[in-house]
């Protein structure tokens, strides 16, 4: 067992969990779609943190490689997401998520 004072991967994992939870909460409570995207980015970062932590635990590079892919995905998502927001703002005065609720039932 590593000494208590040592920073073990578990610490990182817990931090990641917390970050993930905050991001998750953010998606649920925020109304601005851009901020929601940001919160999703927070969640992805939490995942990245976990991957690196596991990679560290196993002394295995795959976890880090995965982070690389996640970064790309995040970038692509943001680009498309912003594109959608822009498209919406062409037609509507606001992009508040709560205002976009025509489809329901």
């Amino acid at each position: 067992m590593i000494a208590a004072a040592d920073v073990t991967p578990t610490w990182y994992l817990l931090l990641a969990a917390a970050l993930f939870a905050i991001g998750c909460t953010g998606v649920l409570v925020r109304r601005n779609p851009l901020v929601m995207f940001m919160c999703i980015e927070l969640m992805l970062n939490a995942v990245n943190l976990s991957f690196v932590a596991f990679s560290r635990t196993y002394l295995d590079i795959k976890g880090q490689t995965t982070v690389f892919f996640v970064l790309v995905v995040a970038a692509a998502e943001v680009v498309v997401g912003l594109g959608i927001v822009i498209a919406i703002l062409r037609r509507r005065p606001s992009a508040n998520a709560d205002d976009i609720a025509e489809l329901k039932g």
Partner: protein
Amino acid sequence: MLNVIWLIPLLPLCGFVINVVLGRRLGDPKSGLLAAAMCGAAFIVTLVTYFDLVSRPEEARQHVATVFSWIPVGGLSVDAAFLADPLSITMALFITGIGTLIHLYAVGYMHGDPKFSKFFVYLNLFAFSMLMLVLGENMLVTFLGWEGVGTCSYLLISFWHTRESAATAGKKAFVTNRVGDWGFMIAMFLAFQAVGSLSYSTLNSAAMGGTLVRSTATAITMMLFIGACGKSAQLPLYIWLPDAMEGPTPVSALIHAATMVTAGVYLMVRVNPVIATAFTWAPAVIAIVGAATALFAATVAVAQTDIKKVLAYSTVSQLGFMFLAVGSGAYVAAIFHMVTHAFFKALLFLGSGSVIHGMHHEQDMRRMGALRKLMPITAGTFIIGWLAIAGVPPFAGFWSKDEILLAAWAHPTNPALFKVLWGVGLFTALLTAFYMTRQVIMVFFGQARWEDHSGDHGAHGEFKPHESPAIMLLPLVALSGLSIVGGVLNLPFTDSTKRLFHWLEPLVHFGEIEGHASAGEKWGLAVGTAALCLASMGVAIFVYQRNRAKAVEPQILVDGWRYDRFVSWFMGNPGRQAFEATAWVDRNIVDGAVNGVATGVRRSGAVLRRTQSGFVRNYALLIGGGVVLMLAWFLLRAVGVFG
């Protein structure tokens, strides 16, 4: 000749078919005459058969003619087969005989009716059914006839169907009969289960051979009796018969007096070995119901004003006598009374029909009177009928009624009960003499009350009752003759004069209960009864002819002890309500449950729909909630909470 007994029912059937196809073209009166001819032909065939049978030795007087296998399934094998034996031929004789007369009468009576040929279609169909009933070798063929006559009765009662009351009466007759049919059917099931056959010979020989269990025999007896009650208008199922008078009068005469209503009695006599095997309370019940019906109907007849209603109640009452005989074990007496009753009651009905005909369809006796001068032949024959039914010697009714009373009086096994029943019977006989006298007086004697009401007859400027045509009078005359001499069939003086008894003996010897009465007793009873009947007639004359005393006709008797009214009320109110309630349950509970499921789905859909609020954050929350639950399940399993 016995092999062709199937011809007997076939001939009226042919008449039926011909009239169905060609009736309209033949028209009035040819189709009627054709029908009568067919019936007459059947009578002739029956006669021939009768003589054939007579010519045989006693033990060979039974013949089964199988036409084809009707319903062969599993253990059940029912043939379309006819049985020629003394009982069935006796029945067939008077059915075809009286039937022919009534057919003839009807040709006159129905003259001018737009549905003339249809009437004879029905009448021939009825004759066919009735002959099937009595000639059937097994219960199912009998049942075929049994239902057939019921159907014809329905059709004929509601013959003038545009009249609401006629339509209702027809329906009532059918449905009430059906109640009895239920009993008949159960009896058949019982018989089949017990002896594996519906054939009378099998059943009766099982009863005589002791292979029929006593309780089963009792059950069969009671169930058949229920059937008989329906068909023969016994309490509590008699209610249809008085209403049946809505039908044309020949129908009343043929069906509701002479033939169909006696089918119940015939059936009981047919299975007399079974009755004999049953517990002794079973025949006692039959006797009690018979006596009670006789008395009940007689009391009601006393107060009726409709000429046919009086006769209807009288019929019910007389049928009660027959059942009293059956219950007493005096089967021959029952048949004897049936035959004589057929004679005089047909006569009375036809007479009344003649009166009605002459009175332009007026049936209320209060609007008649003094008709004997205008309708002498009708009056004369009617009076003969009256004397016969009233039990005046030597007319036919006296002999047969006497036999029945004697059997009740001398019943060996249960004297106390049967003495009471004898008393009831005697009293009923007196009442019969009384109300019949009342009727004769009201119709043929006294003052001509119809003149007061002639204005009611609307279009008829001049209203004058007239005598009926010859074709109607001929049967009256013939029947009056039979009513006079009918007694000779079974005179009790010496053993050899008991012709009917000897004729039927092979069939009833197992069931017949011989009473032990001394000759003195017999004479005393006969003379006493006759005297009392005459006295009763005297009282009636005293009341109605001389007007010396006020007629006692309480409303409750007019209403038939309100029994009929009660039944109607019951069917119309609580019964109807119960039916409506069931329909309500069907609509709202049974179907409601089905629709409720649909509504439930729709409602829950509407509720669940609210989760689909359109707000993306809501959706995310739903997903988040799902995530938490999912995580919780898996984690709890991992740490071993769910094993």
